[in-house]
């Protein structure tokens, strides 16, 4: 009868595992990368300005940010905190105010014919604007649209927008598209050149 081979000692197994564990714990970075997702407009080189369809003034929500990080929304001074409400009012236009964007009927899944706003949000910043402010403003604008989508999702399907399946999300996206245009800045030079 063959002799049974001696067993490999497993006493050091825990030590080895601990070593590896500590290594991974030290190198790990738990931060999931998050951020505001945006799409830039493609570079239009040969398109004549005149070819672009004209956009009526009432359909554009103009947000200007100057080099001192102050906001001018539709010709009024504004605090960043008020921006979300204002943008929501603009995109939804609940009372068909004639200063707020026009609507056009559109056939959408699940909803039938809906009045879809033609509004566009235009964000312009100065070259001297602080990036943090810029992101804050972008965040409010994206947040306004997300809020509207959520409200619609809740009233129609009784669920938050994120929890809906893809087709329903697409339908809601069609009603409240994320039309935020980032115009090229008109600033001359960043203020207070150091």
């Amino acid at each position, binding site marked *: 009868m063959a002799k049974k081979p001696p067993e490999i000692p*497993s006493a050091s197994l825990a030590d080895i595992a601990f070593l590896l564990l500590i290594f991974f714990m030290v*190198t790990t970075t738990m931060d999931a990368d*998050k951020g505001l997702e945006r799409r*830039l407009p493609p570079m239009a080189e040969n398109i004549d300005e005149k070819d672009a369809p004209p956009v009526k003034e009432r359909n554009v929500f103009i947000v200007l940010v100057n080099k001192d990080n102050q906001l001018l929304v539709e010709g009024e001074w504004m605090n960043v905190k008020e921006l979300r409400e204002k943008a929501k009012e603009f995109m939804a236009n609940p009372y068909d105010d004639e200063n707020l964007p026009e609507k056009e009927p559109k056939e959408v899944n699940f909803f039938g014919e809906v009045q879809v706003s033609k509004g566009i949000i235009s964000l312009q*910043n100065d*070259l001297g604007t*602080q990036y943090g402010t810029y*992101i804050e403003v972008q965040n409010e604008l994206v947040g306004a649209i*997300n809020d509207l989508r959520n409200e619609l999702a809740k009233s129609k399907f009784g669920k938050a927008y994120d929890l809906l399946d893809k087709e329903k999300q697409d339908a809601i996206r069609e009603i409240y598209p994320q039309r935020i245009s*980032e115009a090229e800045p008109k600033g001359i030079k960043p203020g207070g050149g150091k």
Partner: protein
Amino acid sequence: MSKFRKNGSKELPAISTASLPDVVFMLLFFFMTVTTMREVTLMVRQTLPQATELNKLEKKSLVSYIYVGVPQPQFQRVFGNEPRIQLNDEFHEVGDIIDFIVAERQARDEAEIPFMITSLKVDEYTKMKIVQDIKQELRRASALHINYSSRKRVENN
């Protein structure tokens, strides 16, 4: 009665350590799966801006990073204390971004190229000029899908 009688020997039995390796291995696997190794050393100082409406970057392998900020103190003598762009492990000029994007594309599968995302990790206090230049370059390179990296804002109301 005899049930509660004290044993003659006072010594407690030793706790069995046989399951210790298993426990440690479990933790080890957890950390191995969640870990993402930092590929570049950050050479600029950064405080990312805060926001609430965040999207998660799903596929790490498809993301290229552009860092912008004031150089760390040890680089300031050479590179000054104005915000600079860091690509991979070096400081670069705005004009190098196209080359960077092309190189990033070449490193990926052709089928994956349309899904590539550029993540802009920009310091909060940077002026928009440099960001605007980067955006123009990205448009020129037609890397249009971008992500402004930011932290989750903790609501305090």
